């Protein structure tokens, strides 16, 4: 098989370039990385075409985002694009944390069975993009425009006008809506003059991908103060095709130019993995991590997603994964607005839901980075105390923070939620705002049974007349509500319906909009209206 990194995406002169007036597009996505592609796939799944602009001529260089979370896999599965990721990627759930040479903590990211997707799949970002591009091409609804770059954006009466530079001349298109998924150095953010303040972590991290055959358990290994990087930390992940990711904390004063020299990196690699190992380099990079976000992600007709909206340190794998969740949160809403089925201000809920999610990610990644690279004497003393106590005190083991791994966001306080119909603290894991929990269902899975639109589900040991009552709900709602009866034991237990039945309304993105202990068509209709901003 050709290495997908060798693929060149030629520029294809679009018919738009020869139009006298700017061609009109309902949706233009700027950026064909994982987030832009997830958005394009999301629209395609709903029958909505999109144009995707990217100045690249090939896949992203370097492995970059590699740990794809269960939630990301669930989203990609709904978009019909997960199988290739599962087949090619490396599945894992166990993390081990070492102090010096001693194992101090093991964690399991998926301690229960009965979920379709694994906790994590490691796959180099360029491979994620490759499979996402193939999936996009299969839909026939994604117009990928490579080697094109947005040079200007002007608001118009009912949309935006984008100026685009290409190798064969410039052209303009108009877009009702623009999704800015153009990464950490977002052009659109710069063109719109938007502030992107936050903090830079002083410490530097040397990251490399090496190609090496080594038989070891597929686990995330993190070291504090290992012999091969005294007083600092290191991280090891396995990726597809015998490619391994190694991270070394090298300190704020480290000499960039010296650190990235292959002969120097090779010394570090051999010190970590053994003097005799046989390997080649695929990628070497040195980073200072940042922690910052836009004040708002929605700016009129332009919606920012992924690194263009928020940037964070990688400990916890929250960057790429939260970007895919951004796209998933946005697409169903924008699709309804485009179809005239929801008011435009539904898009304000993108800010209301994804900004708190970003803040939670920034909080967690900042805490992890401060624990890994303490900035003050007090911080260092406290951190070292945790590590010292971890050997003997279970509570201290839980405090060891080498990264709190990405999970699905719960949109507590979202204006789209209906007040919880369960009593307080009853099955809080499935409260309104939470992402649907997977469970075995028939010969398949619950998440796969949720419709593209809204779903009204009745969890009950015996379904009886519930199906007819749920089917009747759609007569009273502006959008159809797909009925679902669930009587499986594990599913009922997960949704708090082991001893009493429960009715749940799921949104198109799989998040829970409402729940009660009974089926009320009026309540369901009201919950749906609320969930679409009416």
């Amino acid at each position, binding site marked *: 098989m050709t290495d997908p990194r060798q693929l060149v995406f030629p520029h294809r002169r679009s018919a738009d370039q020869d139009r006298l007036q700017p061609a009109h597009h309902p949706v233009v996505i700027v950026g064909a990385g994982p987030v832009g592609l997830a958005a394009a796939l999301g629209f395609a799944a709903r029958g909505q075409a999109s144009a995707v602009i990217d100045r690249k001529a090939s896949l992203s260089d370097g492995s970059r985002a590699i740990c794809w979370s269960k939630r990301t896999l669930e989203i990609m599965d709904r978009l019909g694009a997960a199988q290739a990721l599962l087949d090619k990627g490396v599945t894992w759930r166990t993390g081990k944390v070492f102090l010096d040479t001693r194992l101090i903590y093991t964690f399991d990211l998926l301690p229960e069975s009965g979920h379709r997707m694994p906790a994590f799949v490691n796959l180099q970002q360029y491979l994620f993009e490759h499979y996402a591009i193939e999936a996009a091409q299969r839909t026939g609804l994604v117009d990928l425009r490579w080697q094109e770059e947005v040079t200007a954006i002007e608001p118009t009466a009912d949309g935006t006008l984008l100026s685009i530079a290409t190798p064969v001349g410039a052209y303009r298109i108009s877009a009702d809506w623009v999704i800015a998924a153009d990464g950490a150095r977002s052009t659109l953010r710069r063109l719109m003059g938007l502030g992107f303040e936050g903090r830079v972590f002083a410490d530097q991290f040397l990251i490399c991908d090496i190609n090496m055959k080594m038989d070891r358990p597929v686990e995330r290994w993190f070291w504090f103060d290992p012999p091969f990087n005294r007083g600092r930390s290191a991280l090891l992940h396995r990726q597809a095709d015998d490619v391994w990711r190694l991270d070394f904390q090298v300190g704020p004063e480290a000499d960039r130019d010296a650190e990235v020299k292959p002969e120097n990196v090779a010394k570090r690699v051999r010190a970590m993995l053994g003097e005799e190992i046989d390997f080649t380099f695929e990628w070497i990079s040195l980073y200072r991590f940042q922690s910052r976000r836009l004040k708002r992600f929605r700016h009129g007709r332009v919606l920012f997603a992924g690194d263009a909206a928020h940037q964070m340190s990688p400990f916890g794998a929250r960057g790429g994964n939260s970007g895919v969740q951004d796209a998933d949160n946005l697409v169903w809403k924008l699709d309804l607005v485009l179809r005239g089925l929801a008011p435009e201000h539904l898009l304000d809920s993108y800010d209301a839901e994804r900004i708190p999610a970003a803040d939670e990610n920034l909080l967690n990644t900042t805490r992890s980075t401060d624990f890994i690279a303490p900035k003050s004497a007090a911080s260092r*003393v*406290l951190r*070292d*105390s*945790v590590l*010292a*106590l971890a050997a003997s*005190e279970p*509570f*201290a083991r839980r*405090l060891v923070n080498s990264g709190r791994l990405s999970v699905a966001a719960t949109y507590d306080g979202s204006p789209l939620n209906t007040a919880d119909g369960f009593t307080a603290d009853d099955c809080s894991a499935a409260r309104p705002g939470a992402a649907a929990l997977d469970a075995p269902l028939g010969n398949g899975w619950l998440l796969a049974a949720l419709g593209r639109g809204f779903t009204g589900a009745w969890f009950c040991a015996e379904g009886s007349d519930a199906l007819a009552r749920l089917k009747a709900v759609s007569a009273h709602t502006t959008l159809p509500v797909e009925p679902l009866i669930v009587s499986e034991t594990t599913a009922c237990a997960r949704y708090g319906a082991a001893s009493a039945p429960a009715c749940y309304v799921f949104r198109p993105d799989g998040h829970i909009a409402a729940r009660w202990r009974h089926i009320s068509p009026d309540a369901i209709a009201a919950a749906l209206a609320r969930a679409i901003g009416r």
Partner: protein
Amino acid sequence: MPLMKQPHVADLDGLYAAILEAHTDLSETESAALNARLVLLLANHIGSTDIVREALTTARKSLGK
């Protein structure tokens, strides 16, 4: 339940002496490290972040901060 500000053990002098004795033969750096570990152990035992926050505020105030 708020932070206890009244005496909470019968032999306060004994308690004080026990804390002090734990620092025997420790350098200044080691003493700081001991205090940090003690804070973590006791804070977890207390089991309430609210009470620990109150204690932290009281401690900072006593520094004039």
